[in-house]
């Protein structure tokens, strides 16, 4: 099993969400990046998380049916 029985980088995990959502302060961001540089375990999983989010976004996106656009335009107030 390649998973860890316990998480060796608990703090890193706490910072992952705000880091990827770009809401850390400059100081915290630098701290996170410094840690990532020295920790292959977290680096791998941060990359995975970023890839995963991209995947979900693409997977759940469905373009609007073109005829709906016309129906919405028809709801406008007549001039």
């Amino acid at each position, binding site marked *: 099993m390649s998973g860890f029985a316990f998480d060796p980088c608990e703090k890193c*995990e706490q910072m992952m969400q705000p880091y990827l959502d770009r*809401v850390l302060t400059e100081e915290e961001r630098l701290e996170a990046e410094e840690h990532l540089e020295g920790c292959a375990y977290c680096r791998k*999983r941060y*990359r995975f998380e970023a890839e995963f989010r991209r995947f979900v976004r693409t997977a759940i996106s*469905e373009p609007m*049916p073109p005829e*709906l656009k016309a129906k919405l335009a028809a709801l406008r107030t007549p001039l």
Partner: protein
Amino acid sequence: MSETSPETDPRQLAGEARDRVRFEEEALELSDQVYQVARRLTGSREEAEDLVQDTYARAFRAWRSFEPGTNLRAWLFRILTNLNIDRGRKIQRTPDQQPLEENDYFLYNRLEEFGDGNADERRVVDRLSQNDAVTALADLPHDFRDVVLLVDLADFSYSDAAQILDIPIGTVMSRLHRGRRILKRNLAEASVEES
């Protein structure tokens, strides 16, 4: 009657018509984004179309209550999410109380276990199916799904999402965190079942 009241002053009326036209055009430009979120708030394309039409009908009626210069996108999505609640979605009294002891790397570890062990992150993600992602999202409790959709699909900030859903920003953050974890757990289960 020779005097014109504000309601009948032709200049004022023309100005108002211009504002309204601009408002409607700007709102329509956002319709793709509104549809994308509506599609995942609902179970079918038809329901999503109805919800989007209701949203625009209400927005066009209420256009005067929009304050120019403020966030029109957030304003529209607030109508969308409110109408979605009114639509009578099932209220879940116990929004997923299952313990989530797994850490955030749970899905990654599971996928890696079932792979050849040498895959990079991109190839690990490639093992997931699109249908599983759609199902895993649909299975999220509503409260979590709303937040995940607003932030991860519609790109709203935590504070915009908080305003749209009328919840504190700390609640947005915790629901987002938990929602993403449940999503990963659901997907890990689906992908392990398939392998």
